[in-house]
């Protein structure tokens, strides 16, 4: 008989406080490959699963700088090299007049970098994911909170992990097929 590979073990909790406490205990117990799911952002939860830094801010900064220099250099190149025309006697590189477009390009590139950077780092779009196999998981976007220990974790063990999650006061526990 071929048994389906297991993706992880998932436990359900009722309140934000419960899930944060459970996630903290799981980390402290030495589980490394874990994740938690909630219907709304909980700052403490990311900390509890050991996720402290994300690259979105850096990507946004790089995008913004790209927009800043790209926007300005485009105008500088157009007005001094490619197509210099005399408008009202202004010098070719009349930089104060280039500020509005430079500013808008900075915002545009930084904003799009923030959005697409966030999506790419999150690995979205990803229409299928093993966690969706758990029937109760549809509540994760509504009113329930879930904690998962991935089977790739070194300490993962079907019997012990289940017992550990039960000890955390989980409302229900299920194995996630991959």
């Amino acid at each position: 008989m071929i048994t389906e590979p297991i993706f992880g073990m998932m436990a359900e909790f009722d309140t934000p406080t419960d899930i944060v406490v459970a996630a903290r205990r799981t980390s402290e117990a030495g589980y490394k490959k874990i994740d938690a799911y909630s219907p709304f952002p909980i700052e403490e939860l990311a900390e509890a699963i050991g996720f402290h830094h994300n690259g979105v801010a850096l990507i946004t900064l790089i995008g913004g700088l790209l927009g800043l220099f790209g926007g300005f250099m485009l105008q500088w190149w157009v007005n001094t090299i490619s197509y210099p025309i005399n408008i009202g006697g202004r010098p070719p590189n009349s930089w104060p007049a280039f500020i509005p477009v430079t500013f808008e390009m900075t915002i545009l590139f930084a904003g799009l970098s923030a959005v697409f950077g966030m999506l790419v780092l999150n690995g979205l779009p990803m229409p299928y994911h093993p966690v969706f196999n758990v029937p109760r998981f549809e509540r994760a976007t509504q009113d329930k909170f879930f904690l998962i220990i991935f089977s790739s974790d070194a300490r993962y063990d079907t019997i012990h992990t289940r017992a550990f999650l039960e000890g955390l006061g989980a409302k229900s526990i299920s194995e996630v097929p991959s």
Partner: protein
Amino acid sequence: MVRPTEVEVGEDKAPVLEPGHSFESITDKISNIVLKRPVHLGWVAGFFVSFMVMQGLLLGMTVLFVKGVGEWGVNIPIGWGFAIVNFVWWIGIGHAGTLISAILLLLRQSWRNSINRFAEAMTLFAVAQAGMFPLLHLGRPWVFYWLFPYPNTMGYWPNFRSPLVWDVFAVSTYFTISLVFWFIGLIPDLATLRDRTDNSFIRFTYGLLSMGWRGSARHWARYETAYLLLAGLATPLVLSVHTVVSFDFAIGIVPGWHTTIFPPYFVAGAIYSGFAMVLVLAIPIRRFYNVKDFITDRHLENSAMIMLATGLIVAYGYGMEAFMNWYSGNPYENFLRWNRLHGPYAPWYWLLLFCNIFLPQILWIRRIRTNSIWLFLISLDVLVGMWLERFIIVVVSLHRDFLTSSWGMYYPTRWDWAVFMGTLGMFCALMFLFVRLLPMISMFELSTLLPEAEVKPE
């Protein structure tokens, strides 16, 4: 995200969120409007009327494309008629949505969480209307892409020193950023709709749009960073957009346009008219969709207070304009002041002062601020007033400038009206579709306002 701790309820203030709600009841109530609620005759009638009015826009555009811009009432000396008036009016309306979603987020005003979603939708739809006008006004709208800098066989580039080119960049950036801001705000709620429906087509559609969002804590952390950064970027952006719009006028030398007060005074006016539109939409929506426990009297009162404050800034702008006309000692500026008060368009100027300055002062009275019918009427009045303000700025300044030989009058034609009314119809039709197809209140942000959303220390 705005934490619930600072939702304090004053002695006599209405709460931001009516008590007695849970995560489940919030999700149920908002998503059921989209998923379960039957389509009522009122919605069908409203959508049908808006859709029919929108045909005025299509008809007006067809006539414009076939016959040319001469079908409009614009002619020298008034080359900027309804097109620019409507452009500035619509884009100003959009500004309240960004103010609510971005600036109030940064200022940690938690009451914004229940009105930001539809205010952002309003922004998007209003900017879409606004963006059409300059393009239609081009004369040769089919070559609108010449406005963008791209390598072309004609060997030319746009003039980056022109405020009209700044406008292209400001408005297209504003639309793009408003769109992505609105969309990433929707992703978690679209996932909620995906998980709540039994219909496989609806699940597929929302599933596709939500991009497989599963609410992972890592995802939320990046999401929150991106959302906050976008708010921080949208804040200077919204101020810059109306500033650039005001540069269209202020860079010119026409009396009544060439003033340094224009940028702040335009931004305040934009927020003024935008909040009026927010109220015009929020009052019927909360009545017909029965969401008074999410959009409470507190929201109406806060919006009314912002309207009052920005209205006073606008009043200061009018006063300072008139003062500088006199103080400059410039005969043309002085004549402009006289012409506004006594010239052929004087009745409209007086009506503008009545609509924007005098009538809204009754918002000082608390009973008026908490009465939705009064607020609705005052908001309509402000929308009319702000439209008149742009009309006065555009038309009255242009119609009598330096040489008496080049004076003239502006009379809008029926096609001017058809296009303007058509954009109103299109705006309303889009709003009707929005309230039925997407969650009009942000479920996940509203949930964070509940006391149980707070993580208690161990």
